[in-house]
């Protein structure tokens, strides 16, 4: 039997919980491939349709590539966020996570990193695709591009993970997630589009790119801190 005279139970550190939740999510996704394939399929379809509609005689409209890239990522992220938490709801494993004696914000960070990993995998395919279809020269300044993409993805995923967790027990979560998420992440997406557009200008202005990148970093810090602060309360009842 498991309950008798008992020595000390080691407390589970925050980082260890984050790692366990992330590793579990990635293992489940590698086995099923469900979210990665549907997200990627959706995002690629989106880019292809816009490319056929907007690119005429090899010329895309100004700023089109940046807008299409982030629209595709935004829509794909909504799909990934919904499915990630739907998976936790189906066998009520979210309750088991919440019952564990771990800091609940660590569960949030683990889920957040899993979403970021999934979006990063989609972006690895989307960036060259947009570059090719829109003849956009996205990779002319790779360090700045990585900065913009990483910070915009973190901002989007930080809010999305919190909202998806909040809505997991509501009946109309599929409808409510974009309704709640999009107004909040519009500033992040605008900064992402503007930062990416600035990278594509013939006369590259580093000050403009730096401005949008700093704005994205600010959004990330604010959103992640707010999410960490509120996650325990949001999931408690």
């Amino acid at each position, binding site marked *: *039997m498991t309950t008798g005279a008992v*020595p000390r139970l080691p407390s*589970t550190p925050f980082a260890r919980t984050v790692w366990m939740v992330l590793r579990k999510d990635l293992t489940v996704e590698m086995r099923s491939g469900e979210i990665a394939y549907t997200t990627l399929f959706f995002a690629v379809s989106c880019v292809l349709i816009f490319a056929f509609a907007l690119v005429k005689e090899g010329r895309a409209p100004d700023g089109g590539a940046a807008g299409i890239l982030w629209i595709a990522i935004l829509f794909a992220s909504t799909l990934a966020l919904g499915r990630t938490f739907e998976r936790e709801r189906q066998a*009520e494993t979210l309750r088991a996570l919440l019952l564990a004696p771990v800091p609940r914000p660590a569960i949030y960070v683990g889920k957040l990193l899993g979403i970021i990993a999934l979006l990063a995998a989609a972006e690895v395919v989307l960036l060259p695709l947009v570059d090719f279809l829109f003849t956009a020269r996205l990779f002319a300044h790779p360090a700045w591009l990585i900065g913009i993409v990483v910070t915009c993805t973190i901002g989007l995923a930080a809010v999305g993970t919190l909202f998806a967790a909040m809505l997991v027990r509501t009946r109309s979560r599929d409808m409510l997630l974009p309704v709640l998420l999009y107004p909040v992440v519009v500033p992040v997406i605008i900064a992402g589009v503007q930062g990416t557009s600035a990278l594509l200008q013939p006369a590259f202005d580093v000050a403009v790119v730096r401005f949008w990148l700093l704005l994205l970093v600010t959004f990330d810090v604010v959103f992640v801190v707010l999410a960490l602060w509120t996650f325990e309360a949001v999931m*408690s*009842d």
Partner: protein
Amino acid sequence: MSEAARPSAALDFTDITVDEVSRSFGRRRALSRVSFRAGQGQILGILGPNGAGKSTLLGILATLLRPTSGRVRYGSLGDTQGASLRARIGVLGHDLFLYPELTARENLEFFAGLHGLPEAGHAADEALDRAGLGARGDDPVSTFSRGMRQRVALERALIHGPRLLLLDEPFTGLDDASASALVARLRDLRRGGAILIVATHDLEIADRLLDHALFLRDGRPAASIAQPERLRATYQDVMTRPLGGAGS
């Protein structure tokens, strides 16, 4: 599980006291002024029809829900102890809290790790042996029968050596052999000093298992009976009489 994996005695408790607990969801009152006490080495049954408030009560005891009024005491500990308290509570729900894509061993290792067990792999191996599933430990849980999943889920709920084990409709979907094995395991746990609270409406299996039965009707305590016998007849009597006090 290994001795080193067990939680601190400092956080331990030997009884649970529920005092006038009510819980509302918006304007709907799911539980109304429920009180009881359960001690070490006891099996308490929460009995009632669907919608009686059994799962809500278990959610409160598991610290997943807060009571709207009233309070729950775990020995001398209040329900605000958070993670320290959760380390001594195990829950087996009707949904089994297992990831179907992961193997039984991976599931058990994951939850052992979350509970801070220093040798999660070893704890998972021991749990698989207790479940009689050592040979199937590397198979995904999605390939298991309901009975096998239930055995893994029970070991998941017990892997950290909880003092309080909460079971929500644990016999649903089990064949006779699996249900008998679960009853035997619950009796073992009772002998080991656990506090077991079982919400069920499966009266045939619960008969002769319970040390105490609390009958709920529309979220209100309808009766509380020690050493209940002839559970079905008692249940029908309690559920048809007018609601008054909760005495036996």
